[in-house]
């Protein structure tokens, strides 16, 4: 089976990735991109650093994609997470799915990114304009967007 999830230190190319979702019987394509924001919890962020255990993260990502294909009527599903040092505006994570109908495409794309965010061994260190750094995780975040998993 072709790989459906990758960890990469290179910039993500959404347009090329999206072409892998194409198929004559696909009528809907939903993609998600996570971009590095300039502000988190009110702090001005300069850059982000993502650290991972590549092999375990990639395997867990593949498992998430496989689960989505079991649960939803999909044509294709792919994901990529970038690691290393990223700048504001960089794409940190990309998920794309295609399906015959858009309901399955939306639900699956959301399922995949939610699971990826909560299950993959990927850690985020924020570098602030004032020079400090901080490791960010669910527990340190405000609960403005509670996860369905918690």
């Amino acid at each position, binding site marked *: 089976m072709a790989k459906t999830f990758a960890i990469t230190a290179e910039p993500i190319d959404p347009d090329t990735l999206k072409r892998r979702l194409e198929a004559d019987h696909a009528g809907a394509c939903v993609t998600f991109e996570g971009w590095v924001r300039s502000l988190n919890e009110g702090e001005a962020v300069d850059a982000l650093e993502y650290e991972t*255990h590549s092999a*375990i993260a990639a395997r867990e990502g593949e498992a998430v994609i496989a689960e989505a294909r079991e649960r939803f009527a999909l044509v294709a599903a792919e994901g990529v997470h970038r690691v290393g040092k990223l700048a504001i505006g960089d794409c940190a994570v990309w998920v794309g799915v295609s399906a015959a109908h858009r309901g399955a495409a939306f639900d699956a794309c959301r399922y995949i990114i939610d699971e990826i965010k909560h299950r993959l*061994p*990927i*850690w985020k260190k924020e570098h602030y304009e004032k020079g400090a750094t901080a490791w960010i995780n669910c527990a340190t975040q405000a609960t403005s967007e509670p996860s369905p998993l918690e």
Partner: protein
Amino acid sequence: MIDVTAHYFAVFRERAGCESEAVSTSSQTAAEFFDEIAGRYGFADRRDRCKVAINGALAAWDSALASGDEVLFFPPVAGG
């Protein structure tokens, strides 16, 4: 006593001051070993928010340890 290698990631690596180290331990499970290491370095995160991998694969906290195991401690993930 068994001899294992402990690997630390992200904030755990910074607390421990190293990426990995050889440890002789009387801990019998991953959970006991985590508590031992967490106490030593002052890891702040609750164990149920962390994960452990043994020899390259995610494992349950009640997994038994054996000499030669590579034990990876993962702090809470970025999430969000």
